[in-house]
């Protein structure tokens, strides 16, 4: 089967090369048969990559321990669930998985637009094939997952051997989140290839601006949704598995996943200015280019070992390949831009600093500054060592100090943006729109202060959260009120109707609401507490309002590991609340150990208990308990963000009810004749807010 997989990937490489070279000729000659055959070569490339990937999974499921990759990342006792995840647990497999996800996107794009956008698609196909060639080069010639275990026999001939069992999967990866976190994150990374291909293709083809933007919007949102889910699942994995009480350590690999998310978020906002007003064309094209470049840079950081990280793969020469690829992409982007920059001329200009457009502009600026702060902080130790030969660490305190104010500014703009009108906002409108949300926000701040939120950033964060939530709620309330007045439906039904009529706008607001919830969760960090204690069975420790009593420590053999488990009784006000079972797992094959945190989670706080091991000094079990307020808001907010993204992807429902009402009140305009009754727009319509 490894031969089959290897053969499929080689064929895929050949097809991709043909799709690329044939595509270039098809663009030049515009020969319909050549265009068709290169598109089909692109589709064949994807199918062959699927075949290669499934053959590697087959090797895992059939426990084929003649394959070096299977030996390194699986064993017989590994459950089927984790055998799926074993595919991306090593460098070679994860690169194949990257190709696989990219192939899904490419296949979908080529099939969706096979009879549409004939002028643009050959360019898009060439760009996609170019990216696929790079990854297939790695899959075939640099990091092939289809290497067999071989030993040199007499006379130098190779004999293939098979091991009785494999080394097993890395214990840190044997958690449910690890089965869904990497696919989400990779689907985000690879998904940004599609807007990149469309942007570069449209620039090369000088294709009308709004059209490519319109075509790629959904693909960008899909990739963004996956990236968001991936980042949050990664944070949840770190929280539940690594056992240090936090969810974001600003590790270089975590940062690498955040970088394209920041620029893609900026793009999703600024793209509206191009769609609505034909502005920011150059900016948008470069945002897409930079997002894709940051995806590759993130992979480079993970693969090259240039920065130390708990996530990083071993240092290898593969980083040079990525560096070369980044160089090629940059060169292509610069050349394409300089040759066609006149095509990216803005159609309109900004009329006022107090407008929806300028709020998007500032939102973009802040997201980009955040991106620069994270990127420079991540790479600074490397540059510092090159320039001054001294090693510097850039840890979480630096990133928090720099990014917290930036994040709060962004949160403020999230609330301000929807209150501003396109083109220009009058002073009266500002007063009218800001009065309530600002008042509610301030009341929220005072209440937070009264309830003990005295830490400066936490207090500001909560005040802003209330302000933004009020803004969003008012947008829903106003819209639903109008629909309710016309249709007579309930308020909830009117709200749903409103959302379904403009899914993009109201889906976006749901995403913003999710972000507000995430920020509420982040505000809780200022009140984290932790206690560590060596404990004999029967002893107790106190954290917040909870008393923890260690009842016993027992050992439980499982199929793939042995769990050493603490039985911890949790008491509140001297009454038993529940039992928690934090454990340490020792994996049979690797002899490595892992933590399994026990969490009692409420909306108010998480009681997070870690069995930290046996103290070498006292030789008694060590328990480390944390009290983390508001953490649940982060996970709940993440789910709301994903829900909002899904809503925004839905097509708009036709507004039948409103149209019939409008027909009754506003007469049709007859060309050449004035309207019988003057049309009186609502204040919101006058301000250009829908």
């Amino acid at each position, binding site marked *: 089967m490894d031969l089959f997989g290897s053969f499929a990937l080689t064929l895929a490489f050949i097809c991709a090369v043909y799709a690329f070279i044939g595509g270039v000729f098809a663009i030049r000659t515009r020969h319909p048969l050549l265009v068709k055959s290169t598109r089909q070569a692109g589709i064949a490339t994807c199918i062959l990559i699927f075949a290669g990937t499934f053959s590697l999974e087959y090797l895992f499921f059939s426990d084929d321990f003649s394959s070096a990759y299977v030996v390194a990342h699986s064993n017989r006792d590994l459950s089927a669930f984790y055998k799926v995840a074993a595919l991306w647990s090593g460098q070679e497999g994860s690169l194949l998985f990257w190709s696989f996800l990219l192939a899904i996107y490419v296949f979908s794009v080529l099939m969706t637009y096979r009879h549409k956008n004939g002028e643009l698609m050959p360019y898009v196909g060439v760009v996609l094939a170019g990216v696929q060639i790079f990854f297939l080069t790695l899959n075939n010639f640099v990091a092939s997952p289809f290497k067999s275990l071989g030993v040199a026999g007499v006379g130098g001939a190779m004999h293939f051997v098979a091991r009785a069992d494999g080394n097993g999967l890395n214990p840190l990866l044997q958690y449910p989140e690890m089965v869904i976190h990497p696919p989400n994150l990779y689907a985000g990374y690879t998904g940004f290839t599609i807007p990149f291909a469309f942007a570069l293709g449209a620039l090369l083809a000088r294709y009308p601006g709004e059209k490519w933007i319109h075509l790629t919007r959904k693909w960008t949102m899909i990739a963004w949704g996956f990236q968001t889910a991936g980042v949050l699942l990664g944070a949840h994995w770190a929280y539940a598995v690594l056992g240090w009480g936090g969810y974001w350590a600003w590790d270089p690999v975590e940062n690498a996943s955040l970088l394209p998310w920041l620029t893609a978020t900026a793009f999703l906002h600024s793209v509206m200015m191009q769609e609505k007003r034909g502005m920011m064309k150059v900016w948008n094209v470069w945002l897409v280019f930079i997002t894709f470049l940051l995806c590759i840079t993130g992979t480079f950081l993970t693969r090259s070992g240039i920065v*130390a990280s708990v996530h990083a793969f071993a240092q290898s020469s593969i980083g040079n390949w990525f560096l070369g690829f980044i160089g090629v992409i940059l060169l292509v982007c610069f050349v394409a831009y300089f040759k066609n920059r006149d095509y990216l001329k803005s159609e309109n200009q*900004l009329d006022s600093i107090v407008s929806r457009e300028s709020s998007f502009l*500032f939102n973009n*600026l802040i997201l*980009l500054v955040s991106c620069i702060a994270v990127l420079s902080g991540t790479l600074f130790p490397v540059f510092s060592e090159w320039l001054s030969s001294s*090693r510097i660490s850039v840890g979480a*305190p*630096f990133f928090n100090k720099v990014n917290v104010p930036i994040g709060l500014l962004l949160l403020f703009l999230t609330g301000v943006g929807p209150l501003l009108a396109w083109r220009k906002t009058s002073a009266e409108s500002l007063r009218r729109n800001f009065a309530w949300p600002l008042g509610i926000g301030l009341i929220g701040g005072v209440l937070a202060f009264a309830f003990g939120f005295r830490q400066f950033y936490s207090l500001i964060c909560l005040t802003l959260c209330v302000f933004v939530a009020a803004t969003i709620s008012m947008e829903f309330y106003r819209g639903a009120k109008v629909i309710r007045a016309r249709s007579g439906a309930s308020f909830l039904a009117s709200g749903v109707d409103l959302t379904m009529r403009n899914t993009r706008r109201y889906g976006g607001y749901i995403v913003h609401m999710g972000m507000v919830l995430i920020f509420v969760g982040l505000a809780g960090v200022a009140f984290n507490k932790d206690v560590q204690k060596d404990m004999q069975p029967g002893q107790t420790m106190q954290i917040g309002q909870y008393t923890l009593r260690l009842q016993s420590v027992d050992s439980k053999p499982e199929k793939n590991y042995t769990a050493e488990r603490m039985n911890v009784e949790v008491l509140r006000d001297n009454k038993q609340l529940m039992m928690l079972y934090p454990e340490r797992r020792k994996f049979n094959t690797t002899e490595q150990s892992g933590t399994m945190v026990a969490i009692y989670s409420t909306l108010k706080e998480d009681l997070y208990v870690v069995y*930290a091991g046996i103290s070498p000094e006292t030789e008694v079990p060590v328990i480390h308990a944390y009290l983390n307020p508001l953490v649940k808001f982060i996970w709940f907010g993440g789910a709301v963000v994903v829900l909002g993204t899904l809503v925004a992807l839905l097509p708009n429902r036709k507004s039948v009810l409103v149209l019939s009402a409008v027909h009754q009140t506003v007469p049709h*305009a007859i060309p050449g004749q004035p309207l019988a009754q003057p049309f009186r727009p609502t204040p919101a319509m006058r301000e250009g807010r829908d």
Partner: protein
Amino acid sequence: MTSVRVRKRFPWTILCVVLTLGLVAATLRAQQTDKAKEIGGKLLCGVGTPMCDCKQILTQCNHVGCRNSSGMLKTLDEGVANGDSETTIVQRFVAEFGTAVLSEPPKSGLNLVAWYLPGTTLFAGVLLVFFVISRWRKRAVSAPAAPGAGAEISPEMLARARARASRETQD
């Protein structure tokens, strides 16, 4: 009589003194723990050593038995108990492990680039946005009136304007 009263009060006095001393000791201990946590937050565990290169914040290192964190935390606690200043304690670690032991770059020399880059970018960006907007506005004011301006608005022009307004104001 007096001696009896003194004798009677003596155990209470002792108890009060012990309790006060206990309270003071507990407060000092809590202050020491807080101080140790604060200083520990500025240091990284296991920098550049093969034993535990976890690079976690020293007081967050969750590797029990980690030879770095145990030793480093002991040094930290001793420093705090001796009443050493934060600078002295931190310098002690820097002398042993180098500047890489610090969880954030020192605010001096080349490291200032890391600290000032985000703020400078933000400031420059804001200036740029204001500059671009003011230039656009000036250009819009000085631009000549469109041909046909002032003439009667045809239905086609009105329809075009309405379509544009609709496109630009939705969302």
